[in-house]
């Protein structure tokens, strides 16, 4: 894969992740890249390796072969702290053992120090993000008392806090979202995706795992379909989302209105 050296991308090339038990390969020779300011959506049936792909890109697991690079720097050369500064991940949430408030959980995303200067930056970032995510009324609640959808929104806000950087910073960073809209009601789903869109417009590179094909069609610049650990197809929504291909991969009759790019499957 050829990357122009001045082009900022997270790329994952020739990665195949294998699990020795049962010799099953979770990801097999998957190559893709996300440019700054671009939204790439990953779709595919359950067990296709979507979450594994996110975890591998995030650096949680090491691929058995292939390389991952952020802004042309190999992931293995980045320290744990460097990784936290360059990409932010939102995954399925786990319960928290003690009674932290929503405010505490969001602050955990702040990876840019705690001296006086960065503390005042945090206050600015927090005010902005709380407003954008409309979670001001949740800030003083105990995190464990929130609903599943509210958990997602708080974790999203935390991911944004982690991604926040001064205006002068040339790189806007990367956001990896594993099913960010699971458990969200319609209004919050659209609101979150619009926020993602506006982040991408500011230069953030976004990789999304989605289940809703219509949402993927509407909000993505590129779509990749994973099937059984392999990259079945990658390209613009119009090219990737064809009735014949979707029907074959998801194994239910799917029709696509190519004019408005809307997908029906029931």
């Amino acid at each position, binding site marked *: 894969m050829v990357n122009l050296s001045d082009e900022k991308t997270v790329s994952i090339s020739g990665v195949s992740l294998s699990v020795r038990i049962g010799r099953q390969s979770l990801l097999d020779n998957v190559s893709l890249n996300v440019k700054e300011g671009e939204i790439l959506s990953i779709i595919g049936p359950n067990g296709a390796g979507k979450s594994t792909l996110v975890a591998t890109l995030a650096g*949680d697991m090491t691929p058995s072969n292939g390389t991952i690079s952020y802004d042309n720097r190999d992931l293995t050369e980045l320290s744990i702290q460097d990784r936290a500064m360059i990409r*932010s991940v939102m995954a399925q949430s786990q*319960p*928290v053992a003690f009674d932290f408030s929503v405010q*505490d959980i969001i602050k955990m995303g702040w990876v840019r120090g705690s001296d*006086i200067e960065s*503390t005042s930056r945090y206050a600015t970032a927090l005010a902005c993000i709380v407003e954008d995510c409309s979670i001001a009324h949740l800030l003083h609640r105990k995190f464990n008392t929130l609903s599943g959808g509210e958990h997602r929104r708080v974790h999203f806000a935390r991911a944004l806090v982690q991604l926040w950087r001064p205006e002068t910073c040339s790189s806007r960073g990367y956001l990896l979202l594993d099913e960010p809209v699971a458990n969200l009601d319609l209004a919050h789903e659209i609101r979150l995706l619009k926020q993602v869109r506006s982040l991408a417009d500011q230069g953030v590179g976004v990789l999304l795992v989605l289940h809703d094909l219509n949402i993927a069609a509407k909000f993505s610049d590129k779509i990749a379909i994973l099937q059984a650990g392999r990259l079945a197809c990658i390209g613009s929504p119009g090219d990737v989302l064809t009735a014949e291909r979707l029907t074959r991969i998801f194994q239910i009759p799917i029709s696509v209105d190519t004019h408005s790019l809307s997908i029906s499957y029931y």
Partner: protein
Amino acid sequence: MRVIAHKAAKVKNLSANQTLTLISLLVFAVAIATLACASGSFDISLWAIVQGQASALENNVFMQIRVPRVLLSGFVGASLGLSGAALQGLFRNPLADPGLIGVSAGAALGAAIVIVLGSRFGVGATLGAFLLPMAAISGAALVILLLYILTSGFGYQGVTYMLLVGIAVNALASVGIGILTYISSDSELRGLTFWTMGSFGGVTWALLVPALLLITAALLAMVPAARALDLLQLGEIEASRLGIDVGRLRYRVIFAAAVAVGASVSLSGMIGFVGLVIPHLVRIVGGVHHCYLLPGSAMAGAGLMIAADLIARTVIQPAELPVGLITSAIGSPFFLWLIFRMKKL
């Protein structure tokens, strides 16, 4: 001025309430330590000692008996309270207590091996004083590592699983101590018996100083891990995505807790429930943040342990209650209450 103070508090991540609580806990610990130095079966006027007007006997009791005893109980309380708080954070488990999960038992077994077998292999008193805490620390470290390996991957669901492992480890350690008791001579048996009780009596400066240095080092090593322990509550993977080196954090907490608990147990025996009760009380008063919880648990542990020891040695004068009896009498109902509360959640 107020702005600066406000900003300073923010940088340290402590709320005003938490700062106030920490100061109160420190004042409480110092006050109770002063009271404990003065009272006992033999009341001493601290004022006379400061002025140099005390009798030789008073001076002797004060310097050779009271001060070491109060220091030891304070440090053991601090190390058990802080280790409990740090282990609860590391295991993401509100029921982790060095006693309940078998860490103290591992340390006691290590110490018991040195007491019984050490004398047979001709280990001298000087080497013994050094070997005893080392063996206790190794025992504690072994148990924490074992627990970590056995309960990793269970995450938050591992709460009950960890207690079950604790039961097994406690049982194993008591088998070991039982065998050692069976084969021990009369003098060795006397030395062993004090582990089953837990006591601060009979401590000397020579034994005290190395343990105090070890405990201080362990406490200092744990406090800087506060932010990392906060983030760990999101899960190990989330913490590492936020820039925390989870592997290093794990070994720092395991090693520091093993040193603190091992050194404590080697001098005072097994004192139950302190590591469970203290962090919960401190959380109820001021919140769950580890930058407050860790120093708070150390101070509250010190103060309450000195108080418990003061009660133990004054309530049935001239005889003395084992201090472990008092902490367990308070701790076990508290443990039941915690379980009852978990059922409601």
